[in-house]
């Protein structure tokens, strides 16, 4: 009877919690894995989209020697940056742009027939009359049978264009440009500079709080830094927009205060509490025996800090740096609000930029679900994921090496 009871008791207190813990562990891993798979599958779907807007085609006159146009050329043609066919290896003729809507100013509704049944024919005529035309037409009205019409083959969005493209114009027509470089550059610029500000400040503050401040100062400052972590990022963004941006604009005499630098400063302030709290905890966890050993050998307080406390706390300090960096790279709202949101490759810190998280947040609302734009945003998510992973892996490696040196 007694043994039975104790076995039953053991099942309740040990087996079941063990089982539950096992389940929750594997469930979490599974969910993370599924999210990653979903992210990458959606993201890489982008490359099966045509580079010209879905449902539309580009037509030229059959005599035009141009066989193929890449997205960049299409964009420049329709922006009138290219005005001569010669530029894209065609004849020496000025480019004539023709957008579908223009047909309605050339012909009345009656002329186009019932349900626009004559529309393709009329479009065919327009193209036939103009050897220098390029027409952007909905697929359903394309005059496929007309003699003088050449439909340009539609390419798929290319991986290389995505990763090396310098223009992020996902809503441009007829051909969107998904060049991710400006966003990556914006993200890296803002985050790296934020970390360059936050890390020395944060570690300095952590050293001060854990080693130098007396108990009373610590009791006031520690909760205050922790409180700082709880402020929602919109509030930081609002502060940045209302106070910091005008200040930076005035003092540096810039055209706008909404710059990468403003974003970095706000991000640094936001990452500080994380860095300070974790690094300080790690340093305070250095056993008293270690400090006393160092001091008892005639080490000064500073020698003890950088020869014993910091090496001992190095893994915690690395964690602080990684989490701080993670926050800086992934932060959305505040950055969106203060960086001016211009998707161009920045040449200095004092220009507007757009970061990856800000692009996702700002554009997801206007991107139709399942479309190329939508998928491109998922791909941005993947890039963000890879960047964060690289940061934590390299931090891990660095701290391991540091530790080896210390030993």
């Amino acid at each position, binding site marked *: 009877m007694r043994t039975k009871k104790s076995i039953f008791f053991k099942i309740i207190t040990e087996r079941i919690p063990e089982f539950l813990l096992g389940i929750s562990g594997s469930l979490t891993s599974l969910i993370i894995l599924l999210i990653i798979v979903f992210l990458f599958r959606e993201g890489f779907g982008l490359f099966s989209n045509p580079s010209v807007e879905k449902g539309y085609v580009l037509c030229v006159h059959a005599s035009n020697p141009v066989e193929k146009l890449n997205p960049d050329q299409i964009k420049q043609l329709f922006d009138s940056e290219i005005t001569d066919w010669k530029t894209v290896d065609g004849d020496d003729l000025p480019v004539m742009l023709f957008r579908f809507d223009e047909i309605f100013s050339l012909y009345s509704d009656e002329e186009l027939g019932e349900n626009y049944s004559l529309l393709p024919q009329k479009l065919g005529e327009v193209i036939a009359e103009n050897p220098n035309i390029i027409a952007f037409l909905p697929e359903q009205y394309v005059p496929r049978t007309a003699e003088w019409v050449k439909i340009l083959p539609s390419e798929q969005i290319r991986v290389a264009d995505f990763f090396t493209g310098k223009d992020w114009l996902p809503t441009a027509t007829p051909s969107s440009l998904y060049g991710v470089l400006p966003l990556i550059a914006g993200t890296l610029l803002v985050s790296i500079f934020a970390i360059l500000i936050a890390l020395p400040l944060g570690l300095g503050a952590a050293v001060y709080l854990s080693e130098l401040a*007396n*108990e009373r100062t610590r009791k006031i400052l520690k909760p205050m830094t922790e409180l700082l972590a709880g402020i929602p990022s919109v509030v930081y963004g609002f502060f940045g927009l209302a106070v910091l941006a005008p200040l930076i604009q005035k003092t540096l005499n810039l055209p706008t205060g909404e710059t990468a630098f403003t974003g970095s400063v706000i991000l640094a302030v936001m990452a500080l509490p994380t860095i300070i709290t974790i690094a300080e905890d790690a340093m305070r966890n250095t*056993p008293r*025996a*270690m*400090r*006393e*050993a*160092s*001091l*008892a*050998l*005639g*080490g*000064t307080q500073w*020698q003890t800090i950088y*020869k*014993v406390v910091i*090496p*001992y706390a190095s893994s915690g300090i690395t964690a602080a740096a990684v989490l701080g960096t993670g926050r800086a790279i992934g932060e959305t709202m505040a950055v969106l609000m203060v960086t001016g949101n211009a998707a161009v490759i920045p040449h200095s810190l004092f220009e507007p930029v757009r970061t990856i998280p800000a692009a996702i947040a700002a554009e997801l609302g206007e991107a139709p679900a399942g479309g190329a734009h939508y998928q491109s945003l998922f791909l941005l998510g993947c890039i963000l994921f890879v960047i964060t992973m690289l940061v934590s892996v390299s931090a891990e490696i660095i701290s391991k090496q540091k530790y080896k040196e*210390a*030993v």
Partner: protein
Amino acid sequence: MIETQNINFYYGDFQALKNISMKMDANTVTAFIGPSGCGKSTFLRLFNRMNDLIENTRLTGTCLLNKENIYHKSIQVDELRKKVGMVFQKPNPFPKSVFENVAYGLRVNNMGNKSYIAQRVEESLKAAALWDEVKDKLKKSAFELSGGQQQRLCIARALAVSPSVLLMDEPASALDPISTSKIEELIHLLKQKYTIVIVTHNMQQAARVSDKTGFFMLGELIEFNDTKKIFLNPEKEQTQNYITGRFG
């Protein structure tokens, strides 16, 4: 030589040491015994000013090392601690290699170049009777040593900076009997060069290693005399009770 005069020490409002005056001669081993919480460690930690680290404490009286007041304004604490080494109750090597542990004190005090440090490390490990056991493991982490080896490493570490006084707070209480007897032998050897003050809960150990013994109770120094006299023929009844209680 250490001499204290009318030492009172307070943790906040609590008086941990009451009017203690005593003299510890050079090249002798002085043992502190007494029930737990009577202030032995507090008293010992006065001699290298380790109590300075604890906030909200207060000290009155004088504490002299070789006739010099170690609490005088002109005293540099890190210089003092170089002269007064300390070995703690639990072995507390740094998470560094065996070599770097011993070299630490030399490095922080800028004592000598690379070859001098290497020589000094070897000398110190030999003095701590550890050299033969670790000479092939100098680059290994100190944590790979046994507890007794770690404690002797801590002694070597303290010896490396050439102190004149060695304070030991229950240096063998965390060790097995064989390691303990090695430490005791070592104390015998070191006595020739250093002034040693040791706190211990082990009566036999006090009797074996020390020349003089001080018995503390509730922050007071009850009796201080030659070890033989304390253990064979104490003057105070409290001492007698404590010793016999422990022996019996």
